[in-house]
């Protein structure tokens, strides 16, 4: 079979050609610059797959082993590259299996375009085979969605989908295409979407808000920054660094903000939130001006709102007006794109230092080091800790790896202890807390950035939620490094059971299979470490591997993650043990 190629990409946009709707789908994706998409074929999307076969020289379709894997892989692709991730599935169960990934992308503002096949339009509403109202189902978890029933509407719908997914505050978009729209013909000409009249993606930054923010910051004695993913999504890493350095402001990050500023930066004071660092949590309730940048005051960050930073003036930079005053009342709101608003702020700030204030963070870090960190990364007890595995990975990666974590104890440990030199390197499910995220997301990340080291760090629970994606890793030869931190428990739930449910370990103990054998079954190199003296060498071997590698580390069964802000408590009530 001869594969079709588009010799001149301009041809796509300039000439009108008579083609089928399904070919229009593929040509539209190519016109949007999509090089890889993730999906799973089925009845209602088969015409599009037939075109993907013809265009395989232009666009690479990755067959995942489950549609949820496709959605998470597309997320991983988007998170590491900043581009739109694309996932495709058939109607009915194919479409509903995408939903968890879509919901995850919605709450974590990840740009995705999901394309689903749908039954013939004359069958809509008739309970046809594999018919489901995916537009209705996906409405609350998409930024936008639509159903296309006519071939001629396909290019316009996809152009709008890509524009909406990527612009402003990014998010997932779903386009449902009936089979008759795929098989009938249209006059195809692709034009990128440049705007939607009812949609204002980037609100204008009011210069007065910059002046007001700068005045508060310039007069502050104890200013503190908490930045979130908005800095990464706005590509404002340099602007953030410039602001922090000019005004000498200690800066903390939310879980999704991690890696926007190198971990080693002297003004980087660590992570806020439930299992964040001691100093930034504690001193949230001591600062006089709190500058929130591209973050949304999630409850896992704020703890009890009634006792959150009440003493501080709050400045909130965000692209989404709905975030202003949603959880925390602000004194100054700065709307707009973080890259532009931080550049304006930089101009208005005085050069400053806050050495004694910064020292307070260092003093509290010393306490946290003594009581928590030392035992985590330099343990003296016999059992292996998750923290020392991260330490070994840091040694081998020199902080240059992208860390893809799942959800639970290992995730908190990974985010707390991984070194990051490069932005977009912490890929994790933040808002939705989706177990099963990491393995497929790591595939997407590795394929989007093949030159980067991608290390998936996963618990034994979450690993088994999408373990079938080992098949995708094998088939695609994606050189993903997989570390399973196995404590034979659903560790985070067990920790809560220990602390808040009198150690009643209801359904958290796991009898696990031979993970090494499973990996080897997929022809993936695999090793299991049970002793400390084997760890360094095993991590070294894994990181040196040119191919995918599976490393299982048996860690202490009942270790807890500290510090911890108990659910509903104040950030200043953060516990060290």
């Amino acid at each position, binding site marked *: 079979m001869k594969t079709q190629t588009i010799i001149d990409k301009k041809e796509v946009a300039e000439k009108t050609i008579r083609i089928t709707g399904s070919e229009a789908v593929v040509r539209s994706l190519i016109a949007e610059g999509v090089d890889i998409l993730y999906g799973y074929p089925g009845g209602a999307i088969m015409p599009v797959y037939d075109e993907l076969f013809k265009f395989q020289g232009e666009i690479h379709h990755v067959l995942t082993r489950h549609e949820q894997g496709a959605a998470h892989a597309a997320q991983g692709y988007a998170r590491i590259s900043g581009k739109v991730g694309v996932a495709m599935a058939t109607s009915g169960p194919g479409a509903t299996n995408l939903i968890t990934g879509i919901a995850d992308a919605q709450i974590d503002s990840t740009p995705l375009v999901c394309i689903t096949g749908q039954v013939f339009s004359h069958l809509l509403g008739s309970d046809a085979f594999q018919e489901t109202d995916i*537009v*209705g189902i996906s*409405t*609350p978890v998409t*930024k*936008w*969605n*639509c*159903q296309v029933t006519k071939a001629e509407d396909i290019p316009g719908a996809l152009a709008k989908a890509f524009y*909406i997914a990527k612009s402003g505050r990014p998010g997932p978009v779903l386009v449902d295409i009936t089979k008759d729209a795929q098989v009938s013909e249209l006059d195809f000409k692709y034009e990128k979407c440049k*705007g*939607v*009249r*009812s*949609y204002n993606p980037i609100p204008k930054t009011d210069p007065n808000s910059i002046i007001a923010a700068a005045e508060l910051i310039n007069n502050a004695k104890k200013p503190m920054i908490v930045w979130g993913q908005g800095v990464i999504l706005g590509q404002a890493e340099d602007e953030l660094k410039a602001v922090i350095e000019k005004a000498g402001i200690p800066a903390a990050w939310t879980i999704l903000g991690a890696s926007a500023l190198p971990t080693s930066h002297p003004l980087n004071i660590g992570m806020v939130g439930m299992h964040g660092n001691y100093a930034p949590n504690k001193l949230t309730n001591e600062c006089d001006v709190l500058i929130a940048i591209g973050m949304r005051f999630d409850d896992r960050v704020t703890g009890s709102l009634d006792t959150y930073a009440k003493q501080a003036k709050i400045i909130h930079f965000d692209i*989404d*007006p*709905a975030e*202003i*005053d*949603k959880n925390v009342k602000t004194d100054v709101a700065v709307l707009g794109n973080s890259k532009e608003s931080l550049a304006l702020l930089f101009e208005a700030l005085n050069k400053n230092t806050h050495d004694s204030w910064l020292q307070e963070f260092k003093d509290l870090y010393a306490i946290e080091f003594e009581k928590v960190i030392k035992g985590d990364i330099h343990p003296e007890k016999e059992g292996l800790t998750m923290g020392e595995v991260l330490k070994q990975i840091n040694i081998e990666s020199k902080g240059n790896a992208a860390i893809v974590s799942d959800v639970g104890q290992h995730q908190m440990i990974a985010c707390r202890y991984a070194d990051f030199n490069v932005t977009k390197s912490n890929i994790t499910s933040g808002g939705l807390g989706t177990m099963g995220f990491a393995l497929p997301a790591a595939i997407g990340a590795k394929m989007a950035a093949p030159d980067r080291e991608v290390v998936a760090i996963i618990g034994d629970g979450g690993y088994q939620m999408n373990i079938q994606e080992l098949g995708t890793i094998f088939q695609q030869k994606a050189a993903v490094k997989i570390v399973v931190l196995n404590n034979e428990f659903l560790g985070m739930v067990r920790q809560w059971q220990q602390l808040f449910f009198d150690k009643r370990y209801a359904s958290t103990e796991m009898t696990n299979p031979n993970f090494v054998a499973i990996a080897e079954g997929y022809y993936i190199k695999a090793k299991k470490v049970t002793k400390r003296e084997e760890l360094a060498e095993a991590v070294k071997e894994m990181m040196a591997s040119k191919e995918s590698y599976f490393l299982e580390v048996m860690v202490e069964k009942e270790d807890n993650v500290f510090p911890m802000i108990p659910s509903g408590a104040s950030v200043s009530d953060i516990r060290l043990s």
Partner: protein
Amino acid sequence: MNGDIKTFTISIYTENNIGLLNRISAIFQRRHINIESLTTSQSEIDGVNRFVIVVNITEEQAIKIVRQIEKQVETIRAYYHTEDETIFTESCMFKIKSDLLFNEPQIQNIIKESYARIVTVNREFFVLEKSGRRNEIESLRRDLNVFGIMQFVRSGRIAVTKDEMKVTEMLQAFNNQ
């Protein structure tokens, strides 16, 4: 006070797209806010729809709800207003046995005094229509209920605001970009 529950009228200008009603009603449902009434129709601008939604919530909730609605891609603008800031009305219809119109002279007085309009009369029944405030409609229903009502139906609130909406200017600004 921001914390008092009041009746707010939420007005939304939107594109006329399938599925948007779902998207908007989901915003209320997710926050456990009961919709007292919801009306959607063509607005003063061709191709632009207008929702009028009545809810009993605090002003703080109203602000947040309106921002969530405006966040939807196909919402052009959303506003909230108190009762004092709007002119509003509801409409209702009664289907009543025609015999009563002749046998109960009192009914004719009720119709006259309430400014209700007879839409149609035939041998079996007649249909009354009335627009007005809720209390006027309720009092008419009570008065007629004594004689027996075959069917009663009332619409949701429709409202115009006293201040300007400036949606046309917004759309023009987009077209001039």
